[in-house]
């Protein structure tokens, strides 16, 4: 369904997974490699049709690992690349996600989260990859994970994921869940003039002067596309600025710290969050993704009952919005952390909020969303 409203914004009614696919195209993505997995598969369905229409490439690889590999290969040629997966597929991709991190290849990975460890609940909601997103691959590396709650946000955050991946030369995750993936709601497609598209920094020096990991101009080194005359080496080994392996402890330390800095020194550009009635809040609620929508209702219902509740909704989950969490922690008597898992983000809230009162969880893992009433009960517990 397509319709133009008065501001000439196209109004559509698409399921979340289709919104992801269309946003990727709008962001300039021209390469997708994936592997079938519920509940993310519709993203691949849509892109297998749409990408060739815009001259892009779609490939279904033999497994999740290969999909991640192909993605990185294509990224090195200069394309904006993207894959979508869910729980087990995200686990399988982790090694090559680490590879993308160390060679600093821009790529976007959408994880439509589902429930359970292992095969778990393949077709039901979960938000159980909070910590996998942060620590899933071995070793230290910076992480960006975006967690939209509404389909217009799914659209804008998917575009933002591409921009951040390109700007900072790193994998960026978008974590949605089964509910958002299959939900359809009214969505106004922003006109391309309403958002900016960012490309990776490319070298300005001639090939003979190119140093692949030259950080003299900043923590994000310019990246040359393959086959443009800049011949350079990429390796998963720790490397120096020439890109070749090194075991020099000082260089390894400096390079890993530089990669961390790409995120830690750009928090203002990365962190996004929303607050609802937190100004005078006495009870805090923290929730992300589809659960945050139930939390919104719970907070409104609490207010109706005279309880001063307020919601902090991280739209960037990693790096965690520490400052607003700390501010919230300062003013409230207690915090409810609602998430469709057995308690993951709560560790982060406990760590940063410095709340004098209790921090308790509202958790559910059976594949059914947390209902507003359940969060409200927890709020009332804290009163």
């Amino acid at each position: 369904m397509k319709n133009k409203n008065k501001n000439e914004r196209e109004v559509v009614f698409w399921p979340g997974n289709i919104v992801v696919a269309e946003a990727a195209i709008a962001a300039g993505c021209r390469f997708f490699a994936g592997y079938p997995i519920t509940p993310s598969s519709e993203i691949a369905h849509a892109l297998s049709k749409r990408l060739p229409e815009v001259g892009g490439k779609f490939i279904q690889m033999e497994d999740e690992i290969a999909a991640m590999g192909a993605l990185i290969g294509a990224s090195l040629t200069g394309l904006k690349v993207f894959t979508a997966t869910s729980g087990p597929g995200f686990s399988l991709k982790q090694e090559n996600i680490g590879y993308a991190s160390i060679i600093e290849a821009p790529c976007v990975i959408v994880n439509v989260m589902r429930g359970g460890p292992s095969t778990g609940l393949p077709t039901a909601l979960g938000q159980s990859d909070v910590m996998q997103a942060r620590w899933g691959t071995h070793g230290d590396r910076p992480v960006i994970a975006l967690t939209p709650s509404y389909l217009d946000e799914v659209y804008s955050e998917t575009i933002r994921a591409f921009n951040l991946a390109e700007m900072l030369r790193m994998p960026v995750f978008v974590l949605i869940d089964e509910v958002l993936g299959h939900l359809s709601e009214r969505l106004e497609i922003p006109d391309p003039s309403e958002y900016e598209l960012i490309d990776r920094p490319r070298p300005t020096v001639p090939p003979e002067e190119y140093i692949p990991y030259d950080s003299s101009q900043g923590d994000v080194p310019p990246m040359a596309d393959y086959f443009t005359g800049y011949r350079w080496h990429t390796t998963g080994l720790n490397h120096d600025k020439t890109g070749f392996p090194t075991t020099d402890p000082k260089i390894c330390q400096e390079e890993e710290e530089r990669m961390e800095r790409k995120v830690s020194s750009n928090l203002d550009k990365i962190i996004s969050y929303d607050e609802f009635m937190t100004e005078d809040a006495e009870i805090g609620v923290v929730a992300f993704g589809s659960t945050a929508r139930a939390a919104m209702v719970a907070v409104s219902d609490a207010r109706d009952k005279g309880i001063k509740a307020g919601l902090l909704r991280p739209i960037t989950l990693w790096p965690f919005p520490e400052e607003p969490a700390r501010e919230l922690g300062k003013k409230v008597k207690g915090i409810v952390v609602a998430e469709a898992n057995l308690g993951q983000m709560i560790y982060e809230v406990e760590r940063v909020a410095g709340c004098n009162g209790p921090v308790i969880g509202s958790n559910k893992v059976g594949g059914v969303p947390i209902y507003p009433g359940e969060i409200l009960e927890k709020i009332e517990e804290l009163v």
Partner: protein
Amino acid sequence: MHASYTKYLRMNRIPHMWCPGCGIGIIVKAMIRAFEAVDWSSDDLSLISGIGCTSRAPGYLDMHTLHTTHGRALSFATGVKFARPDKHVVVISGDGDATAIGGNHLIHACRRNIDITLIIVNNYIYGMTGGQYSPTTPVGAKAATTPWGNVDIPFNVTELAKGAGATYVARGHIASGVQLERLIRGGLNHNGFAVIEVLSNCHTQFGRRNRLADPIDLIDSISKSTVNIRQAAKMNKEELDGKNVVGLLHRDEDRMEYCEAYEQIIERAQNAQKNRGRR
């Protein structure tokens, strides 16, 4: 020296890290001569590897080189080639990398018939990780993890590639560099997925455990195990038992290459879109 090796090498990365007497050097030389013979510019070439001794080769070659994760070289290569079908992609891998951890990618790259040339250096063992047995270690052979002899049946790598749909399959060995160059060149020229298995030596890990610690002895034993495909045609099954047939083993020029097939998909999708627009 017939070829200008230095044109393709990163001379500042030499000396290499391989053991003295290792066959990989011979293979890299043959590969470079083949690059020169087909006149491919370094700027149009990507050399991709996984993990292992062989996989260190790209570091020494002055082109777009990608040293990836263990077993996954072909998946990265598929991404590079599919994104830029007009450029050349070569993968160099070992027996463990290509046929164990990367076995799934191997058969699917064969099936897709994407225009990538894969060189598998088969030295019958995991060299870099410490001499563990691989999917090509002969039955009875000793390895770090088969101290009492190997009971796993090895793969026949070329038959595997052929069965999976590779459209150019060849086997060479390090005692015949001229033939090897010719086989690699054939693979580079072939428009489709080409697999060249190269029988090689690891005296350090395989030889030492199997009474062939001297590289000359090991190379000799490899050489003696081979029989040229033309000769093999005249031999019976018993005579061929235990022999490695070398040469061009299989070629199919008729199957469409993957990227070319996908170009047609793009065309079909764009035409359909245009037609929708017209209506």
